[in-house]
């Protein structure tokens, strides 16, 4: 008679109670795996929106530009910095920034003018993928611009429409020109959505009279490099220019990221503490209603280790079934959430701290999506079962046999 076989039969002595325990574990695990997949998806979406679309890992500005974003505060040696960053394994692209007025027929609105090197910008930013209608910039068509979605709505623009941009050039003259809308962006971020107008680098320089330099360099770190290491690398290449990581540029979002991780941990704890209490209750009941039996087992020669092993095995059987069922249920659930997502907000997406995310919340599972909840469940089960198991193991046979 093997201990495992005895444990298996003991589990099914009270089928209803065992199934309640197994189902509690399975449901807890199922919820937590789905939740872990969704949270990772949310963080990935946010990260992609922040890092890929607009901000990059690190940005370089001329000293003082962040406090006073003037057309005249430029990084003069932006091209040289870009080359040094490229040599150090970073991807980098410079942008030109200015402010102006955008007008179409009878409508006008303030605009943020962004000049980009179309080819290089595509290596550091996914904004070109965020075009909702029309197409992205083409260096062969310098009069073509791409506008943010709310600006397009304000000015009633559609791809192919004409757009006039007005500003003050760097030499103090009136800057104005007629452009044609090539594309309208989908959700990108608060500032770009409300007033962003993307131009080719050449078109910006011509309009604003900026022959050289750049206002911002967006830098992407090599895969796997930590943010502090990336900043150190960029500082080494950037000389006197001001270098900031995305966490320094967007502290509110950085805190929110950390808070989401904290919330996920709390969610794990709440669900698993509930499962742990159910399990503790079950195991205590299973031990206390069999006190006499444990006494007899000890009387006929079961040592404390054998009794401990028996109770732990019974718990292991239930846990294995709970994990199997919970993980099994989670497979189609996570697949569905990864493919179709959850509709969580208004059509235009949700904007937090100037960064807009899609209304559809997708799961982004990886091995940790399963391993972390399973590891936490095993820990909780271990913590819940150890007291009744030790109690059963250390009980004195005479007290147990007399127990009523």
């Amino acid at each position, binding site marked *: 008679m093997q201990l495992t076989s005895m444990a298996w039969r003991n589990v099914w002595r009270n089928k209803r109670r065992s199934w309640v325990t197994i189902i509690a574990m399975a449901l807890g695990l199922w919820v937590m795996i789905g939740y872990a997949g969704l949270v990772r998806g949310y963080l990935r979406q946010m990260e992609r929106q922040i890092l890929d679309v607009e901000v990059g890992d690190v940005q370089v500005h001329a000293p003082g530009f962040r406090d006073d974003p003037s057309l005249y505060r430029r990084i003069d040696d932006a091209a040289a910095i870009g080359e040094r960053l490229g040599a150090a394994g970073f991807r980098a692209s410079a942008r030109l920034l200015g402010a102006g007025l955008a007008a179409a027929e009878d409508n006008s609105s303030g605009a943020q003018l962004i000049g980009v090197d179309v080819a290089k910008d595509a290596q550091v930013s996914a904004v070109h993928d965020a075009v909702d209608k029309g197409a992205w910039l083409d260096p062969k068509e310098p009069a073509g611009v791409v506008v943010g979605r709310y600006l397009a709505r304000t000015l009633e623009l559609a791809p192919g429409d004409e757009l006039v941009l007005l500003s003050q050039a760097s030499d103090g003259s009136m800057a104005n020109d007629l452009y044609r809308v090539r594309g309208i962006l989908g959700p990108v971020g608060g500032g770009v959505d409300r007033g962003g107008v993307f131009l080719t680098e050449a078109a910006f320089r011509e309009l604003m009279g900026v022959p050289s330099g750049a206002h911002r360099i967006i830098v992407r770190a090599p895969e796997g490099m930590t943010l502090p290491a990336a900043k150190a690398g960029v500082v080494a290449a950037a000389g006197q220019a001001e270098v900031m990581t995305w966490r320094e540029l967007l502290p509110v979002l950085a805190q929110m990221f950390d808070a989401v991780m904290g919330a996920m941990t709390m969610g794990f704890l709440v669900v698993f503490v509930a499962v742990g209490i159910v399990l503790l209750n079950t195991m205590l009941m299973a031990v206390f209603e069999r006190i006499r039996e444990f006494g007899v087992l000890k009387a006929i*020669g079961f040592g404390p280790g054998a009794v401990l092993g028996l109770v732990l095995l019974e718990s292991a059987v239930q846990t294995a079934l709970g994990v199997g069922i919970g993980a099994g249920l989670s497979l189609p659930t996570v697949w569905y959430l990864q493919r179709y997502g959850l509709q969580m907000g208004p059509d235009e997406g949700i904007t937090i701290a100037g960064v807009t995310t899609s209304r559809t919340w997708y799961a982004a599972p990886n091995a940790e999506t399963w391993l972390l909840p399973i590891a936490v469940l095993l820990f909780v089960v271990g913590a819940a079962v150890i007291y009744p198991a030790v109690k059963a193991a250390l009980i004195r046979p005479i007290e147990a046999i007399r127990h009523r």
Partner: protein
Amino acid sequence: MNQPIAELRDVHKTYRQGAVEVHALRGLSLAIEPGEFVAISGPSGSGKSTALNLLGGLDAPTSGRVLVEGQDLGQIGRRRLAALRRDRIGFVFQAYNLVPVLTAAENAEMVLALQGVGAAERRERVARLLAEVGLAGMEDRRPDELSGGQQQRVAIARAIAAEPAVVLADEPTANVDSETAAMLLDLMGRLNAERGVTFVFSTHDPRVMERARRLVRLVDGAVESDVRR
């Protein structure tokens, strides 16, 4: 005279029931010799079950010594005590106390399994044993499929399977009818006579006392009489 298989030497046992101290045994000395068929009788509270529990290492004396095959149970650890109970002492309880999820054969072979006896040998020895106690063909029945008498036979088979030095039986006939009690006593008498198994009973049952070849009567935790027949 043989060395005693089990022995109580000047044993005192005191329990505390709330604020009251109960003296269950008062300087009891008793030696059980190999091959004996002993009944310990006495009124309720006389200390007979306590004496049996001490002999089996299930309980510890307040003072005095308990020896099994010369080993002082007060001097050995929890693990060695468990091994001693497994290898040298068999127990038969009033309420049978079989493990309900195990079959008759599995219950009977449990001690052998704990000793590490191989599955084939266990099966063969237990089949023989169950046939000897009149349960041939019932090996695969669970306790709830057996009568009280049949369950007690399985308990006896479990107690003697590992060929212990002594079998301690606490009121083994208390929960069965007269006919079954007589059958159980025949069985244990035969095992004692044919296999030399030493039996020590605690009992109220006059039928057990009649069959015993040594009758120890306890009163107030001490031996009132000790008669060999």
